[in-house]
Each structure stands twice: as C-alpha cells, then as structure tokens.
C-alpha cells in the first residue's frame, strides 16, 4: 500500500465518519465543528489529486469563512434543550423519505457512471495547479468568470451600501 493510498483511505474514512457525526450530533455547534473536519478532509483529497489551488480555496472559503458564519449564527441561538420544539412525527417520516430518495438517485447515477476506468489522477494531475487553472479560466471561460466576478463585486458593494444606512 503506497503512501497515497494510505492517506486516501485515512481521509475517506475520517470524512465519512465526520459526515455521519454532523447528522448524528445533538448539539448544533458540534455538528458545525464536525462539518469543518469534513471540509478539511475533502481539502486533503484535493492535495492528493495535486489540486493545490482548489485545496487552499476550499479551506479559505468553506472551512475558513462560511463555517465561521455558521458557527457565528448557531452560537447566537438559544441552545437549551427545553426550548427545542417537539418535532412532528410526520415531518420525520417525510425527512426519511426525502433523504432516501436522494440516496437512491445518487446510487443509481453512480452505478451507471464509468468510475472503474476513470480513476482520479492521484499525485500526477496538473489541472488543479494555479497556472493551468488560470489559463483555463481566463482563456476558455473568460465571460462566465468575469460575469460571476462582477456579481460578487456587486454583492459586496450592496453589503456596504446596506451597512451605510
């Protein structure tokens, strides 16, 4: 078993375990912290695929910024067990059916996908390096990239404008 394999299995097991813990944890703050671990392990997978830029952006944006906001909101909530509303029984059943249907669709989609022959390029892929990614973004996808950047800029300006009121 090579180092890459070992790391792959380690990260995968940790990711799936943490993902389960996100759902199972009673305390929302614990859920968020487990979710952060999920993001970090997924970033680890990006490294194994030599996608350094994706690794760090995933870490900055998801684990670093979005999860902080999640944590922020959850910390401000009243987390007493008494104030927790009693869940409707039908709601639970609906949740199980919805989740099960999603699982079914995913399994069906993956079953037909040709995953056997398209192994991830562990350690050898070049597409995730920042140079190649920049080339792709600014040559092949300039227009969508620029439009989305303008969208983000306007969102930021909007936030400042709202803050100014």
């Amino acid at each position, binding site marked *: *078993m*090579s*180092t*890459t*394999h*070992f790391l792959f299995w380690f990260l995968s097991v940790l990711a799936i375990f943490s993902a389960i813990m996100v759902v199972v944890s009673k305390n929302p*703050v614990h859920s968020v*912290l487990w979710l*952060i671990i999920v993001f970090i392990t997924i970033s680890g997978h990006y490294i194994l695929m030599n996608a*350094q*830029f994706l*690794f*760090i*952006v995933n*870490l*900055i944006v998801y*684990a*670093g*910024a979005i999860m*902080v*906001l999640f*944590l*922020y909101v959850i*910390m*401000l909530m009243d987390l007493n067990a008494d104030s927790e509303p009693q869940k409707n029984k039908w709601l639970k059943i609906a949740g199980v059916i919805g989740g099960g249907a999603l699982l079914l669709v995913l399994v069906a989609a993956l079953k037909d996908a040709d995953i056997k022959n398209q192994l991830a390029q*562990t*350690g*050898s892929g070049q597409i995730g*390096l*920042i*140079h190649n990614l920049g080339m792709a973004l600014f040559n092949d996808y300039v227009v969508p990239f620029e439009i989305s950047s303008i969208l983000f*800029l306007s969102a*930021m300006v909007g*936030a*400042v404008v709202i*803050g*100014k009121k």
Partner: protein
Amino acid sequence: MHEMFLIIDWAIAIEKLVLIAVIVSLSLVVAMYETYAERKIAAFIQDRRGPSRAGPFGILQPLADGLKLFMKEEIVPNLSNKFLFVIGPGLAMLTAMMTSAVVPWSSHLHAFGRDIDLQIADVNIGILYIFGVVSMGVYGVMIGGWASNNKFSLLAAIRGASQIISYELAMGLSLIALLMLSGSLSLRTIVEQQQDGWYYVFYQPLGFLIFLVCAFAECNRTPFDLSEAESELNFGYHQEYSSMKLGFYLFAEYVNMFISSAVMATIFFGGYDIPFVNDANFGAQHGQNLLATLQGLSLFIKVVIFIFFFIWVRWTIPRFRYDQLMNLGWKGLIPLALLNMLVTGFVILLKQNNWHF
C-alpha cells in the same frame, strides 16, 4: 507514483524535520522575548524602567513569567464544554505555528554535499496558504470563547470572528495588486524578484499600508484588540482560562505577531535580501554559507523592526470602537484596496502597451 509505503527519502525527511524543529523553537523563543520587549518598550514609552529584577536588565523575565503560568492552578469551569475548552488554546497555537511553513527564512545552505533550502515548503500557493491558515485561526478564538460558557467570552469570540473575517477580505484584496506585479504566489519567487532591485513596498505603498492595518487586526493587536477589550468584556475570550491554557492564548498572539512580521518583511521588504549589497556577487566572493547566514540575519533584523513597530503602535494608539472598526474595514480599506487594484492593473496594461493608450 508507485513508491512503497514507508519508503521515504530519508535525507529530505530528516532535513525538513530538523528545519521544522529549528523554526518552531525559534519562533517560540522569539515570542518569549517579544513579551519581554513588549513590557520593556511599554515601560520606556511611559517613562518607566520595565522589568529589571530577573537577571541583568530583567533578561530572564520571560522564563519567570512562563514558570509562573505553569505553576498556576488549572481551572476548567464546571459548566464548560471540557473537550472544546481544552482544544481552543491548542488550535490557536497550532494555527499560529503553521504559517511559518511557507516563509523563506534564507536562500540555501550548502552542507553534507547538498543544498538545503531554508524554507519548510516552497509551494506555489504560498500566500494563499497563509490566508488559509489565518482563516483557520478564528476557530481558536471562537471555540475557546463558546466553550467557556460565559457571556463575555461569547461576545468577545463573536467580535473576534467578525473582525477577522472582515479584515481578511481587505487583506486579500490589497495583495491582489501585488500579485499582479509579481505574477507568482510563491513567497520564494516573490523574494527573488526583489533581490537587488526595488522592494515591492515602493511599487505598492498603498497596498502595504492596507496590509499592515489588516495584519494588526488579524493579530488582535491594539488598536484592534476588540476581542479582549478588558474595559468592556472583562478579559475577552480567554476570561475563563487559567494557567498554561491562558499562556497558550497569550503566546499564540506573540507567535502570530512574529510570523506576520516575517510575512510582511518577505512580501514587501525583500525578505532575506541584504539591502545595498549585491547578494549574488557577495555569495560568489565569500561562499554560499556565509551569504545564507547573513541573509537570514537580514530578514531577522527586518522582522525585529516590524515587531518593534507593532509594540510601538500598541502603546500609542487607543482601541477603536466597534462601529469605527467595521467602518474602517468595510468602507475604508476595502474600497481603497479595490482602487489600488484597478490603478495597478491600469498601469500594468499601459506598460505592456509601451505607455500608449
């Protein structure tokens, strides 16, 4: 790609391990003496003499402080979340130390028949790596503040988190202009571009200013130490902490200060470049090892100047009010950084066009 598990290039592994050990212990020692410098400079600025009893000129004061922290009783509050309470300071320390991995401390030594890079990892996303680790640094504050189960700590944690997120944005934007000039995210490449030429601070004075302000905010230093504002929040997020857990939080701040000084020196002030000396010629004349040592020393002096600046500012400028802090970040620094980016891009285009419109 098919190397067997545990077949590792031991030479590189040992080299890197030694380097990591040296750099980690170096940053700890520097952080220790930063506390001494902080107290001494604070004293001088206030016309006092500062710590002067432990050893000559009080040189052993940090050791005495550390010993005191170790001897203190360790208290974990009853209603706190015990595991997270312990993990918080550890995270703060971990993220503070991890940033040092991508900073090039000098060029390379020539020893044992091989060139040894004095940098733990020369990744081509160096600057982004620093941002990533810094953004992880919030969790030390947030988890510690929440797990303490104390309203003041929680408020401080929330303040700290929103402050760090806000200033990270301006920090990133201020660097983009510089990255357009350098064309690389690797810190070593950025330093090599500045060798024997103009430092980037002359091309990007506004970018440097914004970065500097943001670095203060990211390190939770006065004037931006809102998350530990004693007069409003008792002691901030580490109010419930005692003994070495408190020590870790306080220490992490000083390690952060050291590393961010090193990053600023690297990006804007030529890193390990020796000013007014042609490094390549000097290396050819006097040997690579002497050059590397002097370069490391040069970086260290730059870092020390920055640390002095950090301390100097702390004992000059009073703390911002919270709305002033947010105004400065969102309405002051971010538009300025965007403007800086636009102007820089414009000039670069103009230059590519041989100064014709």
